């Protein structure tokens, strides 16, 4: 008997019902963004998914126009879904494990903004270079 002989059927991803709950949650937050400009975050690691539903949710949300990659203590992938204002933010550590997996409802995900501490440090570096070349 080979492994192919073991009959395993994958249950239909959309029949279980967990995806619907989260889409409802996203719709509520997106409504708040439209009405009041409120940002929101959903921690995907805290939600129950069947093995297929995670991919199902990805397929359902699709990909929009913007993708960004952050190279900082491991990669992060940030992209806008097919629904403007709904971003999928996945942080990896240096070993490539997912350390945070979030849906962010915002016009721009917070992590993409330049941080003032970093901007100040960068300005210092730039002035340093200029002073050395004078």
């Amino acid at each position, binding site marked *: 008997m080979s492994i192919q002989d073991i009959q395993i059927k994958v*249950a239909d991803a959309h029949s279980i019902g967990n995806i619907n709950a989260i889409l409802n949650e996203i719709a509520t937050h997106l409504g708040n963004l439209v009405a009041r400009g409120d940002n*929101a975050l959903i921690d995907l690691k*805290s939600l129950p998914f*069947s093995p297929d539903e995670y991919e199902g949710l990805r397929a359902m949300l699709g990909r929009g126009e913007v993708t960004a990659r952050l190279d900082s203590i491991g990669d*992060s992938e940030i992209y806008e879904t097919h629904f403007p204002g709904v971003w999928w933010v996945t942080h990896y550590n240096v070993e490539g494990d997912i350390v*945070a997996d979030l849906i962010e409802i915002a016009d721009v995900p917070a992590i993409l903004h330049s941080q003032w501490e*970093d901007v100040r440090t960068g300005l210092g570096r730039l002035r340093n270079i200029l002073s050395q070349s004078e």
Partner: protein
Amino acid sequence: MSEHETLEQRLSEQGVSRRAFLKFCAALATMMALPPSSASAIAAALSQAKRPSVIWLSFQECTGCTESLTRSHSPTLESLIFDMISLDYHHTLQAASGHAAEQARDDAMKAFYGKYLLLVDGSIPLKDGGVYSTIAGRTNLDMLEEAAKGAAAIVAVGSCAAFGGLPNAQPNPTGAVAVSDIIKDKPIVNISGCPPIPAVITGVLAHYLTFGELPALDELGRPKAFYGETIHDRCYRRPFYDQGKFAKTFDDEGARNGWCLYELGCKGPTTHNACATTKWNGGAGFPIEAGHGCIGCSEPKFWDAGSFYTPLSAPAADVASISQAAAVAGAGAALALSATDRAKRQQVQQSREKLTLEDLKGN
């Protein structure tokens, strides 16, 4: 170890940007099971955090808890242990042995008296003067009592330290007891599980490090953020339970379709733990995802609670009333489920959010 250096200073010396630090805090929020919006509060608290000294004592145990922690992924043990805490004694992990090892423990206890965090895995045997488990010629009881005196708090790692665990199972030949049976005058956190989820161990350490105090606990001393809900509450097979679709054997049609494992003895409805969402092996899955019911390893006396394969005697939730509500609302059972789950989750989230704010005020 420089005692006064804060985490933020150390990171900026290493050229880690503020943005990287925020990413790290997002990962911590996930790990501590706090609302993701608390990342900026965590960042504020963490930038001032000092590195606490940790002493880890292993008693009557199988080393599975240490294995669990050293196989943990997020954030890596390496970054956590070496950057965030100072592990001054752990007799399985440390390089020193014999007198030098015991000396390291003595030194750390003196230097950080009243301030160190004491981690304990394993139960403590009391029968026959505690002779069944000794280290360097001293009984576990003796060593625990001494180390507990100077501890700021104690973390009982694993079901053995938390509840007595397997050594405590009938007929308990060594008279094994939990840490909380012996130490009465120190705050104790129980991180139960056989073994406990590594991210829960690190999550509690991170919470202590971030907020300078222990997280909110349930009536069994377990952190609510991880043990506030049952496996059943967060199980992805739950819609099948609500639809009454159960696997009857491990190889029938229902099992292949991934239906609920309740009738095969799943203890998910009475077990409080975070496996269903935090998962194991870097997020690869958890027992129910592999087709085996939960055995309830994070509950007291789970070993003596009957067969792992006998169904629990009564359903944990009133299935009929849930489906009635669904019918009235004109929605599917899955939607009704998400509504009940959501209400429950909100309760838990609220108690957690309260905790966070209080913690921050205290800082």
